[in-house]
């Protein structure tokens, strides 16, 4: 890839009077999986929130396909799937309604494949049960079904493997690999040991040590 998909230049951010990162530079290209590592409190979540555009408490430049982020924010949002700590699932709505709402917001999603996505995460038969009746793991999987539904090319995943079993983890790893193989980009944090080929790592602790 000649041009990085997402480029970060001179990123500076502080939280509660503590500098999380200063002069952070990195880039990711199409087909790459980047794992952000670091201890608790090293700013992993903050970094992902900055990359997604949720947090604006930073200094530095972000570029999306070579353009400054502010100028292409609409295109960026179309190409982005963000999976955060919060599930983004309404407890009083059914899985189907939840995903229907997501599909209505994201132009890249195909609302016809909601049932298929729910089948993929093992929620077939729970389509019209309100989410507050589901277990914690099932609740999480409603949120994960977005990965099957979305056509976004950049995935930003913050701890996507919490509250799912081993089999589920292996399945998600496969999904991530498939996405990368198809030319997509994944940036994620996780406590799990990932078994992925071509995985790149970015350690925030080391950065903090050198700066």
């Amino acid at each position, binding site marked *: 890839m000649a041009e990085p998909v997402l480029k970060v230049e001179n990123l500076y951010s502080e939280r509660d009077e503590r500098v999380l990162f200063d002069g952070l530079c990195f880039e990711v290209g*199409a087909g790459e999986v980047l794992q952000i590592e670091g201890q608790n409190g090293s700013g992993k979540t903050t970094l992902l929130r900055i990359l*997604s*555009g*949720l*947090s*604006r*408490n930073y200094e530095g430049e972000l570029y999306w396909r070579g353009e400054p982020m502010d100028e292409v924010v*609409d*295109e960026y*949002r*179309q*190409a*982005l799937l*963000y999976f*955060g*700590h*919060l*599930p*983004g*699932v*309404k*407890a*009083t*709505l059914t899985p189907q*309604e939840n995903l*229907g*709402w*997501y599909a*209505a*917001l*994201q*132009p*890249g999603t195909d609302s016809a494949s909601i049932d298929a996505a729910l089948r993929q995460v093992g929620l077939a038969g729970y389509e019209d049960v*309100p989410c507050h009746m589901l277990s914690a793991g099932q609740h999480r999987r409603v949120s994960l079904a977005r990965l099957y539904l979305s*056509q976004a*090319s950049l995935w930003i995943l913050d701890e996507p493997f919490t509250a799912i079993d081993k089999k589920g983890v292996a399945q998600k790893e496969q999904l991530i690999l498939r996405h990368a193989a*198809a*030319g*997509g980009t994944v940036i994620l944090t996780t406590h799990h040991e990932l078994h992925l080929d071509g995985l790149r790592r970015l350690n925030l602790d080391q950065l903090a040590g050198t700066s």
Partner: protein
Amino acid sequence: MSEIATNEPARRRGPTAVGVFRAALKRDLLLAFRSKSDLVNPLIFFLMVATLFPLGVSPEPGFLALLAPGLVWVAALLATLLSMDSLFRADFEDGTLEQALLSPQPLILIVLARVLAHWIMTGLPLTLMAPLLGLMLFLPAEGMGGLMLSLLLGTPTLSLIGAIGAALTVGLRKGGVLISLLVLPLYIPVLIFGSGAVQAAVTGLPLAGYLALLGAMLALGVVLAPLAIGAALRISVSG
């Protein structure tokens, strides 16, 4: 770049603005219907506030009739304010607000749908219930029309302004009291013209002027408030 890149141009058109607005409104109404207590509580509050005044001030009909226009309006204002705190809070806590902010759809549409749903769930029932309060407070029959019309035009503005306060305080633990502090001064013009319209209706004066002013404020609110609400939401989620 394989299928992902090639898929994009065809799908970029995506849902239309009307489609997004309709989907958002549908979802918000559905959510409101599923939690019925949120729907009923402001109405009960509205009724209770109106009951306090005869008990606290005087049950004398002539006196109450004099106070009635202002009382019903103040009660409606407080009931709207009470329901405001929860407007974005649930969405903020379960992360659906994050997802809405990250969607490529214009935020003002989503916000406007949210406020409209809120008004359908509180402002509209308050307007429909107002004649009951008017009766309890001995509001003369000539004033009923003015009361309902002024509430119909005024309560959406209250929802719009209140939503700004709700958006600013959504990330804060002690949002409830703070939101009243921020929003109440901004409610004053609506209160003045709303109760003025009822008074005019009671005394048989023309109320077109009042209604026009309420309408103008509503128009201004519809244009400007969603911008402020959207900006406030982005700031609150960012912090």
